[in-house]
């Protein structure tokens, strides 16, 4: 009997840190850098690198604004990111439910 084909995963999003960032943004809210850093318990440097990777892949959009004269960086998921994360969840669920 032929073995079922293994699902192909997007390696970029499978990293725990990037998965955390994209999961935090999944609801469509705009989240600020500090808020993300504290929620995911990451260092500034690590978060910056991962955000840049996700931005380059087109999964998130980064917006720099001034709030009370202080610079703030907000992140928002893109429609490409939404589609990718939905696909990933479906594949993970299929894998968990497979016999």
């Amino acid at each position, binding site marked *: 009997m032929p*073995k079922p084909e*293994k699902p192909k995963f997007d390696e970029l999003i*499978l990293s*725990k840190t990037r*998965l*955390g960032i994209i*999961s*935090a*943004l*999944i*609801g*469509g*809210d*705009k*989240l*600020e*850098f*500090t*808020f*993300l850093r504290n*929620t*995911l318990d990451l260092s500034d440097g690590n978060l910056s690198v991962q955000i840049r990777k996700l931005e380059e892949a087109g999964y998130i959009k980064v917006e720099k*604004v001034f*709030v*009370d004269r202080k610079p*703030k960086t*907000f992140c928002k998921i893109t429609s490409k990111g939404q589609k990718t994360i939905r696909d990933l*969840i479906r594949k*993970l*669920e299929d*894998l*968990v439910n*497979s016999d």
Partner: protein
Amino acid sequence: MENEDLLEDSKANQESFGGQKIAADDLKFMRSVIEKTCRKIDPGWPILITWGLILMIGFPVLYFLKIRQLDNWLWRVQWLLVVIGFSISIYFVTKAIKRERKAGLISKLSKQIYWIFIILSANGIIWTCLDLFRDHIGGFGFLWTAICGIELSMIGILYSREWLYGGIAIFAGIIAAYFTAQYAYVILGIVTGLACIVPAIIAQRNYSKQEQENA
């Protein structure tokens, strides 16, 4: 040969179980992050309580002016109510937007709710300006009560069901007011006022409770 096949199958099963475990862990991790970040939005109770009080006081005042046939005052008070209501709403909404930006979480849901509020209220203002409501839907009170009922119902569907009960109560109030024309404005004022104030208090209490639990 058979043993080799069995060994291969066993290895494949182990690999598959390992993959399943990793997938389950990933899903669990994603769920925990979503639960942490998808916080309930601040219900913004001051806006609703203000609107509730304006309607509770304003509509009986309009009723009083109508039975005294003070028509010259009637439209002035109507516009005064609209201007006070919107000035206060704009003040509280601006404050809420600033608070969200400062906290670092700009909620998509609150944006959707603001748009519902803006579009429906703009409709109400246009109808009031053009005086369209007079012959078609019974009067200023009915128009703004209906707008308030639709707004609360939509917030109830999108956000929290307390508001939906408020919206339903308003529609019941409109029907009751229609059949008791003499006291229509008093009924509309009390029902709409309570439909705004009571859910606002309940939603704020639930929000504070959840914030305490999350802290």
